[in-house]
């Protein structure tokens, strides 16, 4: 009998479960993966080089386009790095708004993860449910920033503006697809302020999470596809540079929100879930529990924000723009406004690294300034990059179908990996 040789399979870059543009060269022995070689860079836009050519404020919207599933978390790391170099104080209310929107972003990301991971390995239904809630969350983004996804809402020194008092309303479609009563029902929880809408959402959300869990957690097929797949020990997880849910799934209790708290996370009451076995199923459970914890944090932020009005951006006019009225009535503020949006602010020489607990792991911005109005070097530390680098080690010995489960568990988004 002739000996069967290993053969090579090109997976992607155009494949529904490749989450964008991953080209994976798989060396197979039958159906068993002997080696996985991810080829990345198909979405490389040189964000870091572009940022070197832009003033500090103009580099901010690029951050949304990195991990385009968790936009504001990326911005958060960037503004924190700039603030660190400037030595800038952020008003407390802005810190609460940032924490609240970071957690809203975490929900957005984890909902996408649960839906997409399910879709990848055959559980179609969860996707439809999670995207129902993403719609509400994207409405919050829209209400506060005007954009559903690429918010560009955080600013060095605070956030762009305070939370709005009204929510956008649904209108009857021209095609009369909905009756007047249906439209009124859709607008039922949108009559108050944004905070009322968020508060209403946090009340509804735990039952939604129960729905996803009903669909997946005890689902036999889901467990067959995830339990014992992609097991990684805590020691290897550390050595391979995994962060976030990837490392907590292996039982390492490490969360920057608790261990190196930034903004007002030290005032928040929440728990860090950790897994036991370090397989895809544990990482799924960790993320589901994180959604419940995020919901708790959002609730605490809403309560605080209701009671404590105040400024939401630094009053240092060298960095933050003056009010519109001030700019039109006051010569000095006009000059500040003009300088800020033509030349931009200068950041003192030095280097800083700011990391946030991004939904996917540790997301950091390493910023080096030489005193100019543009960064000298900016490096984006994307968590997905390290996770995908671990693909080879985690996929070896698994079946080819498990590679898809692995990609789901990494929660990869090529915007941040290729940058």
């Amino acid at each position, binding site marked *: 009998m002739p000996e069967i040789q290993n053969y090579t399979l090109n997976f992607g870059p155009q494949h529904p479960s490749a989450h964008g543009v991953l080209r994976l060269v798989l060396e197979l022995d039958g159906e068993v993966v002997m080696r996985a070689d991810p080829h*990345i*860079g198909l979405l*490389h836009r*040189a964000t*870091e*080089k*572009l940022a070197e*050519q*832009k*003033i500090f404020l*103009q580099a901010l919207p690029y951050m949304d386009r990195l991990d385009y599933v968790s936009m504001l978390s990326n911005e958060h790391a960037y503004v924190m790095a700039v603030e*660190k*170099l400037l*030595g800038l104080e952020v008003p407390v209310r802005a810190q609460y708004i940032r924490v609240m929107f970071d957690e809203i972003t975490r929900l957005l990301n984890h909902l996408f993860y649960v839906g997409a991971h399910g879709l990848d390995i055959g559980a179609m239904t969860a996707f439809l449910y999670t995207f129902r809630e993403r719609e509400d969350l994207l409405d919050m983004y829209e209400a506060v920033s005007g954009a559903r996804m690429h918010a560009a809402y955080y600013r060095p020194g605070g956030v762009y503006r305070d939370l709005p008092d009204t929510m956008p309303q649904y209108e009857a479609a021209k095609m009369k697809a909905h009756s007047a009563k249906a439209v009124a029902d859709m607008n039922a929880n949108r009559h108050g302020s944004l905070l009322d809408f968020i508060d209403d959402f946090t009340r509804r959300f735990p039952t939604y999470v129960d729905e996803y869990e009903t669909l997946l957690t005890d689902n036999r097929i889901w467990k067959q596809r995830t339990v014992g797949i992609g097991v990684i020990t805590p020691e290897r997880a*550390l*050595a*391979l*540079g*995994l*962060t976030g849910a990837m490392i907590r799934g292996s039982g*390492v209790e*490490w969360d920057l929100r608790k*261990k*190196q708290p930034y903004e007002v996370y030290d005032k928040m009451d929440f728990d860090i879930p950790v897994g036991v076995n370090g397989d895809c199923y544990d990482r799924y459970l960790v993320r589901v529990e994180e959604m419940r914890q995020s919901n708790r944090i959002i609730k605490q932020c809403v309560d605080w924000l209701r009671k404590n009005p105040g400024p939401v951006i630094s009053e240092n006019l*060298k960095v933050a723009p003056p009010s519109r009225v001030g700019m039109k009535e006051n010569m000095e503020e006009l000059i500040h406004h003009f300088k800020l949006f*033509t*030349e*931009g*602010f*200068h950041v*003192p020489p*030095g*280097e*800083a*690294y700011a*990391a946030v607990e991004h939904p996917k792991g*540790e997301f*950091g911005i*390493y910023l*080096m300034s*030489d*005193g*100019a*109005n*543009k960064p*000298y*070097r900016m*490096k984006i*530390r994307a968590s997905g*990059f*390290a996770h*995908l*680098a*671990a693909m080879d080690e985690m996929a070896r010995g698994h079946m080819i179908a498990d590679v898809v489960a692995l990609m789901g568990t990494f929660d990869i988004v090529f915007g941040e990996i*290729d*940058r």
Partner: protein
Amino acid sequence: MNAKLEKLAASLRVILGDNLAGLVEHVGEITIDVKAAGWLAAAKLLRDHPELRFEQLIDLCGVDFSAYGNSEFSAGNWQGKRFAAVVHLLSLSNNWRVRVHIFAEDDEMPMIDSVVDIWPSVNWYEREAFDLFGVIFVGHPDLRRILCDYGFIGHPFRKDFPLVGNVEMRYDPELKRVVYQPVSMENRVTIPRVNREESYGA
């Protein structure tokens, strides 16, 4: 500098000894310079020494210092070596971070020892720094390009590489395939890079 950073700085000074070429504290972070020749030995100590225990390598990136301090109107005055690798380390057990600069000795052929045997996570980061800056990591098992296209020429993040690139791609109807040709567009600067006196904006 708070007590924790002071303790870390003192430990680094003692443990790294002669390999330590500099230690700076800025905005609550410690940056050390390690000599390229002693990088492997220092890396082992950074990971294994019980007082340091940097188990995790968070990030490695290349930096090209040749344009440091430059502006649209004047040239900077960078005297040091051109290329450096900047490493961010994290210790989970001690809950502290450190940043390490390793300057490559040779500007024409920058070479730095690979630490892939010490922190496996550095594998792709070193490939990335090689791809974007042309820094060669000696001892790396698989130093290929990672982000740029197959067959790309040059190292795009070097400061002398133009933002618009050197070549552009188009479909040639006569040859019936995609061809590369020199770029036809110019690099456009909308806001000039300005570097003012030290106290400006403070």
